[in-house]
């Protein structure tokens, strides 16, 4: 019985760490939706670009890992801006279904382009970080670093949105876009900045994931749906709701996986999501916040 409890505790702690990373992934998608009212269906494919960037800079060009990470964030932030300017801006005032379709199109385009460019093989950094041993509990450092980085990034983003003029404008524009020019704010510039931040968060997510997972052209399918589910479960556009939802789903996956099998953890998380969509279709926190 004693040993059982220790492994349960390990599952809970792992769930917490996993939740931190998921919360970060959801943050960028939520920010973009909350401000621009467009869902980046191809969000996880932007992360894939970041993972490839880190992988090639580190493993093929032998740049230090931190340089590769910084480049990964910057590259994906740039991709976010390109996505907005080239794809989303032309359909900004058209039907929401068209906006979903174009970003969905970008998803398939990026997957296919990655397959053509890099082939289908799985690649990884080839790093093995040690684990933290707490008695009988083992927590991989890759997960600890990832969760801590995610936490710091979320706090910094919160401070930015709360304390700066630009951050306040980003929150304001989702409440009343039409009068932003009266404040001296150019809405199109705020959208570009928001897309850069959303992309940057996807890039940061990529840096954290590439420590733990192989990169391949379909990696987006592993993280895209769960990221999207977290945002919807928390209330699309509600960043605090997304934060809470990330930890709920991560615990279901981790602890559910402990009691049954890791795949069952995902099944439980998806069943929980479907049930919640009937009970609270507007999300845990409802509406935007």
């Amino acid at each position: 019985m004693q040993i059982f409890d220790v492994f349960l505790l390990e599952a809970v702690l792992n769930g917490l760490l996993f939740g931190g990373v998921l919360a970060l992934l959801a943050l960028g998608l939520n920010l973009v939706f909350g401000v621009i009212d467009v869902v980046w269906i191809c969000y996880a494919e932007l992360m894939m670009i970041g993972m490839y960037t880190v992988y090639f800079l580190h493993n093929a060009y032998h740049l230090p890992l931190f340089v590769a990470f910084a480049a990964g964030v910057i590259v994906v932030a740039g991709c976010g801006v390109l996505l907005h300017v080239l794809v989303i801006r032309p359909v900004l005032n058209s039907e929401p279904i068209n906006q979903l379709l174009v970003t969905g199109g970008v998803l398939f385009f990026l997957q296919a382009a990655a397959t053509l460019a890099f082939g289908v093989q799985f690649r990884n950094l080839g790093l093995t970080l040690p684990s933290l041993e707490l008695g009988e509990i083992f927590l991989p450092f890759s997960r600890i670093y990832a969760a801590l980085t995610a936490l710091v990034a979320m706090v910094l983003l919160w401070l930015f949105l709360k304390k700066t003029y630009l951050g306040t404008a980003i929150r304001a524009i989702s409440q009343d876009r039409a009068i932003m020019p009266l404040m001296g704010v150019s809405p199109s510039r705020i959208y570009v900045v928001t897309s850069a931040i959303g992309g940057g968060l996807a890039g940061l997510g990529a840096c954290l994931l590439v420590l733990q997972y192989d990169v391949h052209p379909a990696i987006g399918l592993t993280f895209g749906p769960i990221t999207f589910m977290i945002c919807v479960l928390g209330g699309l556009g509600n960043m605090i709701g997304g934060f809470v939802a990330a930890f709920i789903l991560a615990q279901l996956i981790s602890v559910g996986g402990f009691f049954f099998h890791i795949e069952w953890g995902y099944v439980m998380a998806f069943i929980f999501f479907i049930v919640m969509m009937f009970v609270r279709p507007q999300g845990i926190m409802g509406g935007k916040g």
Partner: protein
Amino acid sequence: MLELKNVCAGYGTFQALFDVSLTVNAGEAVAVIGPNGAGKTTLLRVISKLIGAAAGEILFEGRRLNEVEPHRVIELGVAHVPENRRLFPRLTVEENLRMGAYIPSARAHFAERLASAYGLFPRLEERRAQLAGTMSGGEQQMCAIARGLMSRPKLLLLDEPSAGLAPVIVQRIFDVVRRIRDEGYTVLIVEQNVQQVLKVVDRAYLLEVGRIKASGSARELAGSEEIRRAYVGL
């Protein structure tokens, strides 16, 4: 300071303003009065460039505004307090005021201007951390005016500041307008409350169905039999 020459404007195929000409001199308070749907709000929206002018010229301090981008107008010194207040409902009072001071020249003086906004509206200081959307209509209107003043505009555009407010609050809003003009601001105010607004402005224009129908000093217009019968209800 502000001069409109034969301005025409509208939305799509609907034309709301026809050949409107009007001037506001520095230090003046000028009202545009007229019934609902006369084009008063459109007139202010044309000046702050929220909509483009189809014809005519808008000059501010001798500079043509027609080609100026909308978000640059406030940098030139024109602040617009829009119809229905349009606060950011889920930002706090202080965050709304921060948005009013968004332009670089205002940011540098934010603390001092915040203090003077709270001096003019002590109630806002009490509510500084409250979400703007949860305040009463009168408080929201004061916050909207304070937000407009944060950039220290040369010209303040006020769109129906008394609309939808209880009579006692309306009185307080017009007191505020009087204080603002006494502080030296140039004000262009659009109002349906003709009787009250003519007491606080120097001159006024009567706008009907998109055309200027009359103009003159506030005293002249207040004494005009036609205006008294149509708008003051005396």
